[in-house]
């Protein structure tokens, strides 16, 4: 229990430090946000002052920093420059498609990655090892936007098997593959090397000496141990899923937070960019927390104290 509580507690300062980085970064912007707000129209000094007050830009940096952190915690980060809508509302509206996409990519990536990793790792230096690893290499070398378009081209346009646009589960297939492919490649490689390591361990020899079947050994004994590094990789690659959403939503013309972020950047809509980054960072950190928890569940050495040897 100790382990899980400790991890939970550390998350909070990490979150605030990350948010601080966001604040610092976004406030180095050259140029006057007031201009953006006014849409480049000329305005009197009075109007400018009003706008400045509305944006809270007349207050000193320290005060703005503190209110920024408070607002971020509350989940209220002001209004978008361009649409004048509360950014939180905009995020809520666009959240679902991105979550679906991320989960789709995650499922594809984990299943195919681990599958090919096991194929390769259980017979290292064999034909099937080479085959699986070449596929994995392709996975990490393929630009996701290109493979996305190729998938649309082959399966959508030419073969007409899968609908390109629209809601629903079926339309999630191609984008999920697009997002998850890189992820699958990395998982496959890591699962393979981890499995090879584990299968060379002494306790596998002990398992064999008990007369356990190969199948049994792989599933029960090695997989649990071998999955520890790939789970760690998951944490690092969550960032990929989030950002992969940006590209894939663009390619497949799907609504979502990725699209929103892109448009916000191009339009220099600072409050929206800020809110999205704040939100995505929080999600990233919490996902990593879940990964840490999983790590603790899989490996008892992590969560339990060692007795004296």
């Amino acid at each position, binding site marked *: 229990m100790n382990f899980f509580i400790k991890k939970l507690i550390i998350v909070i300062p990490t979150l605030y*430090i990350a948010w601080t980085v966001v604040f610092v970064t976004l406030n180095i912007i050259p140029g006057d946000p007031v201009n953006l707000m006014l849409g480049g129209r000329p305005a009197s000094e009075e109007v400018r002052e009003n706008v400045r007050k509305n944006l809270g830009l007349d207050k000193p940096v320290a005060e703005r920093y503190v209110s920024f952190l408070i607002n971020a915690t509350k989940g209220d980060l002001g209004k978008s420059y361009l649409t004048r809508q509360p950014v939180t509302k905009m995020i809520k509206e666009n959240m679902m498609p991105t979550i679906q996409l991320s989960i789709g990519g995650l499922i594809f990536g984990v299943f195919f990655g681990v599958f090919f990793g096991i194929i390769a790792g259980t017979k290292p230096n064999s034909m099937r090892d080479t085959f699986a690893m070449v596929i994995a290499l392709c996975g990490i070398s393929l630009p996701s936007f*290109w493979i996305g378009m190729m998938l649309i081209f082959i399966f959508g346009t030419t073969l007409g098997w899968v609908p390109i646009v629209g809601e629903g589960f079926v339309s999630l297939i191609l984008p999920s593959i697009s997002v998850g492919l890189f992820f699958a490649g990395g998982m496959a490689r890591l699962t393979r090397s981890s499995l090879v390591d584990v299968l060379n361990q002494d306790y596998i020899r002990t398992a064999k000496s008990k007369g356990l079947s190969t199948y049994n050994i792989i599933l029960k004994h090695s997989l649990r141990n071998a999955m520890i590094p790939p789970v760690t990789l998951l944490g690092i690659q969550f960032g990929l899923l989030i950002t992969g959403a940006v590209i894939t939503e663009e390619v497949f013309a799907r609504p979502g937070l990725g699209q929103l972020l892109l448009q916000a950047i191009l339009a220099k809509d600072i409050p929206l960019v800020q809110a999205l980054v704040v939100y995505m960072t929080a999600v990233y950190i919490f996902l990593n927390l879940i990964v840490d928890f999983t790590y603790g569940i899989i490996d008892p050495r992590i969560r339990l104290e060692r007795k004296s040897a």
Partner: protein
Amino acid sequence: MNRNKIILKRFLLNKGSAIGGIFLIVIIIGAVFAPVIAPYNWNAVDTGPRLSPPSLSYLFGTDIHGRDVFSRIVYGARYSLSVGVISVLFGIIAGSTFGITIAYIGGRVDIIGSRIIDVMFGFPSFLLSLLVVAIIGVGLWNVVFAVGLASIPHFARIIRSAALQVKEQPYIEAGINLGFGNLRIMFGHILPNIFPIIIVIATMDLGGAIISIASLSFLGLGAQPPEPEWGAMLSSGREYMRYAPWTMIYPGLFLFLTVMSVNLLGDRLSQALDARQSINRGKA
């Protein structure tokens, strides 16, 4: 010395590195000799019918402006390769300097420096690059800077731990006792010893850098038209996917093959490095 030669031989003869190496050399030659190889200028519009399919005179067809896709791809090699290399160089140089310095000085400086690296790791790097571009604006070199910047914590962390290991070696202590200046030890002694590791991780990350930059260009944040950068070409080719798929297929294909070659080489290099290290350890 002999051991090194054996490893080098194994590396060169290995199928993976051979394939990757050859393809990469082809691309580099293409990039360097672009004016000679490309039949048309990459920016020459209306050299022929617009959106015409691949033929003898237009190996990869033409795009919406009547430009020869093949020529644009050959020139594009210059962009994609060089920006990748520069971005990685930037990240490596900054990351190494930071990593070696805090490892060498140690103590509180090291602790603070490591915390800084950890904090920057709290961000997915692509998001960081997006953020930087949001601030400094769009453009190919902005993106190169952004991607390079986002890669610094990653390099700094690895190089720091490598430097820490080297720092423990007796010859470093000997150098300190002999009164060598700090800079001399850091860059004259520690750096050369971790050089192989630096090369390997730089190569392994090169592929990722190329893709990141191409991705950002694809989103419209990097190379701007009419620059023949492969990512940007994919973005414009996208509109004509239905009738002129070659404008989309080839830039992406070359992006893929280049990154794959770089990754192959990086893989083999890292295996060779592991082999060398285990032989060294075996000796000791």
